[in-house]
């Protein structure tokens, strides 16, 4: 309504810019989607078109391993392989383990920092927060060496190890929330005979769904997109997560022309989970991301 009331020139320009930005944001993805349906031979002829002339599913069949190597080369493939189903499953397991275990561990620690006065709590909390400032490239080499020495290269445990126990931001964020919970509810539980663990599980956790989901959402985004660590640990195809698999699929033909059709089909497939999540949990995702900026 406000819109109709005051359509000043400034507003018109603003709308124009906003719409342009939306186009700039969405157009590349649509273009990628189109390319994924283009047969290999027609990439050049259709490069400026919004729709393929002869849409085909062969690119998708290729990345899901439904074509033999000869067939896929005939269909314009580079002979490169991507096992998109496996890497999708790996990504889900990798992200899932980290999100669940890390959020839980961080909630436990955050609760202790917020509510239990124990020796050294201030110092340790400061150290946890400071850990956010260490660039990941510093710990990368020692962590890699540790994983190698423990024989955890190419294992799921090795991939989740640096992430799943602790995350400075999650501890910090959840502690802020636990501090804001009314203390007398927990004191009532204490009088009712609950010990710290019971208070945590029966009172504090059930009251913390919203912030826990915020943390879990943020961790999901970050871990689903994490590249460098799994790239170092998972050298075996069977262990690769989506970003790693996509990168190695792309770089298997560094000299020749990449298999654009297959690559774009893989890109589309890798994008779909994000779009589905955005469709169902859009508000939560947007608000979670916004939360990071407010102290």
């Amino acid at each position, binding site marked *: 309504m406000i819109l109709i009331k005051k359509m000043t020139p400034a507003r018109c320009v603003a709308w124009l810019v906003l719409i342009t930005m939306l186009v700039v944001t969405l157009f590349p993805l649509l273009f990628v989607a189109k390319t994924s349906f283009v047969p290999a031979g027609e990439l050049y002829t259709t490069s400026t078109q919004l729709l393929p002339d002869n849409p085909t599913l062969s690119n998708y069949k290729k990345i899901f391993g439904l074509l033999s190597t000869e067939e896929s080369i005939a269909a314009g493939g580079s002979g490169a392989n991507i096992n998109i189903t496996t890497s999708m499953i790996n990504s889900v397991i990798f992200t899932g383990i980290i999100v669940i275990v890390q959020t839980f561990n961080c909630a436990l620690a955050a609760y202790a920092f917020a509510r239990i006065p124990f020796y050294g709590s201030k110092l340790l909390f400061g150290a946890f927060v400071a850990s956010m400032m260490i660039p990941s490239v510093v710990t990368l080499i020692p962590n890699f060496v540790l994983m190698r020495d423990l024989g955890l290269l190419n294992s799921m445990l090795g991939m989740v190890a640096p992430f799943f126990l602790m995350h400075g931001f999650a501890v910090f964020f959840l502690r802020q929330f636990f501090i804001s919970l009314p203390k007398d509810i927990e004191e009532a539980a*204490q009088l*009712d005979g609950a010990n710290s663990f019971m208070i945590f599980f029966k009172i504090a956790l059930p009251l913390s769904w919203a912030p826990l989901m915020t943390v879990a959402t943020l961790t999901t985004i970050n871990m689903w997109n994490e590249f460098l660590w799994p790239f170092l640990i998972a050298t075996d195809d069977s262990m690769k997560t989506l970003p790693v698999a996509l990168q190695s699929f792309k770089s298997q033909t560094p000299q020749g022309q990449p298999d654009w059709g297959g690559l774009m089909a893989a890109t589309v497939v890798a994008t779909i989970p994000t779009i589905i999540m955005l469709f169902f949990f859009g508000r939560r995702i947007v608000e979670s991301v916004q939360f990071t900026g407010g102290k």
Partner: protein
Amino acid sequence: MANITLKNVTKRFDKLETIHSVNLELCDGEFVVFVGPSGCGKSTLLRLIAGLEEITEGVIEIGDKNMNNIAPANRGVAMVFQSYALYPHMSVRENMSFGMEMRGESKENIHTRITKASHILQLDELLDRKPRQLSGGQRQRVAIGRAIVREPDVFLFDEPLSNLDAELRVDMRIQIAQLHKKLKATMIYVTHDQVEAMTLADKIVVLRAGHIEQVGSPMELYHNPNNMFVAGFIGSPKMNFLPALISDIEADNSVIVAFNGQKILFKIQSDKLSIGDPVTLGFRPEHIHLAKQEDGFHFDITVDVAEHLGGISYLYSRFENNNMTIEVSGENVLTSGDVLSVGIKQSDCYLFDQAGKTLIERVLPNR
């Protein structure tokens, strides 16, 4: 037996001492009210008894057992918080059963106790609701119900009614009084409300800045306050204080007090006074009459503001440079600017020395 004894109880938060070596003796089944100005340590004292705060020095005994190292849950106390502190994610029934489950009570036992408590507090209809679906008064009843089912020796209330509106407050006050009669448990109750304190208490404990100023029955505190602080704190509206002088000293602990050019004899309990010492007279607003009294002081006041409440009126007035509040019963048409001649009986006067300590012991009315 749930008599409570505090011996030299001291509490420090970091360096800051907020409770200073408090000694207190509460009998089994007594209804005790803690009063005092904001920040004087009422809640802290209550929480020390509950065990929610650890005492820094001293001993707390409940039923003659040292409680210093006993966990809150094992002290036989239940607490009702000002904010109710109900578990928001649990139904009324779950709120009440939580503590018993923690203790491993049997299912039937839990059921019978909840039935009984919800009957007493008329919660039967509400058992399956969540706290947010309840009104303030209902929440408070649930909070009390949660305490009752614990069957504690001692109930602790921290300003339980202060979030309720005036009418509900009267209602709940009466319910709590009835509950005390029925359960015969020891109850400690913190409040800011004069009426709650006077009507509920068997014993009032007046606190100031972490010290106990006086302990006694409501009538004791009203008639024989130890000092000006208690005198000013108990009674509403507040007692009026006016400067006077010792004009003469008689042999048998009697002095002549001069005020407004009048001299009256008081029997006192001190022999440290000398002629010319300043003292303070205390007049309760309800004891000042609109007429000169035989054997008493009289003086003229100017009315600043008159509040007419129907049955009674309060006259906020001035005598020389002192503020005076006067309570007048019956209807009248007095108004601002009126000059009145008022009087007070000698037997209604309070008298304090320079340090604010009381000088006279008055006789309590007997039945």
